[in-house]
C-alpha cells in the first residue's frame, strides 16, 4: 500500500544545533502533518500543511520550528535551535483530503535525541 518514508530513522544532535527531519509523503497526497511523541506519552499534533502553507499549528509548534515542502520534494520539519525538550519521536503523515473522517498515512517516525 501507499507508504510515507521518513529520513533519518534516528538523529542525535547537540543542544543548540539545527536539525532537519525529512518526510517523503504518499505521492498524490495534498495534506501533510507532523506529530510529536515524547517517550511514554501520546502522539500530539504539531502542524498541518497544505498548498505551501501552514494550515494549523498547536502550542507545541514553537517559534524554533518551521516546515516547508519546496517544489514537491521532501516535506521537512526544521528545528533551530534545538532544545533538550525536543527529544522525541516525530511522525510525519499525509492524507488526500482534510475532512474529519479522513485516513492518515504515517511514516515510521524519526527518533530525535538532543544531548
Amino acid at each position, binding site marked *: 500500500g501507499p507508504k*510515507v518514508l521518513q529520513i533519518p530513522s534516528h538523529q542525535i544532535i547537540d543542544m543548540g544545533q539545527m536539525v532537519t527531519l525529512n518526510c517523503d509523503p504518499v505521492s498524490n497526497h495534498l495534506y501533510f502533518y507532523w506529530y510529536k511523541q515524547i517517550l511514554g506519552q501520546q502522539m*500530539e*499534533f504539531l502542524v498541518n500543511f497544505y498548498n505551501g502553507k501552514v494550515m494549523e499549528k498547536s502550542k507545541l509548534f514553537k517559534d524554533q520550528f518551521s516546515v516547508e515542502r519546496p517544489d514537491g520534494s521532501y516535506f521537512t520539519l526544521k528545528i533551530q535551535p534545538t532544545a533538550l525538550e525536543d527529544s522525541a519521536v516525530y511522525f510525519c503523515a499525509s492524507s488526500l483530503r482534510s475532512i474529519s473522517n479522513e485516513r492518515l498515512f504515517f511514516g515510521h517516525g524519526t527518533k530525535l535525541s538532543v544531548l
Partner: protein
Amino acid sequence: GDSVTQTEGLVTLTEGLPVMLNCTYQSTYSPFLFWYVQHLNEAPKLLLKSFTDNKRPEHQGFHATLHKSSSSFHLQKSSAQLSDSALYYCASNNAGAKLTFGGGTRLTVRP
C-alpha cells in the same frame, strides 16, 4: 479541548481469548473515532474508523462500536491471535484531519 483516554497501557492475554481495548473520548462536538495499530518496526496504520451512519466498522476480525451516550469506542475481537500483538492507538477527529490520540495500549498475545 478534545481528549482521548485509553485506560490500559499494557494488556497481556492468551491466544484464543477475546480482546477488548478501552477508549473513551471528550469532545464539544460529535467526532469521528479511529483505531490505529502499530506493529513492531512498522508505521502506525489505520485499523478501523467510525461511520456517520452508526454502522459498526470491522477489519481483520476487529470491530468497534461508537456509543455516543458513553463517549466510547472500545476495540474488540472475539479471539486473539499471536499476530495481533502490537501498539493500539485510539484517536478522535472533529475538524479537518487533525487527530487527537490516546496514550496507546500495548497488546501482547501469548501462546
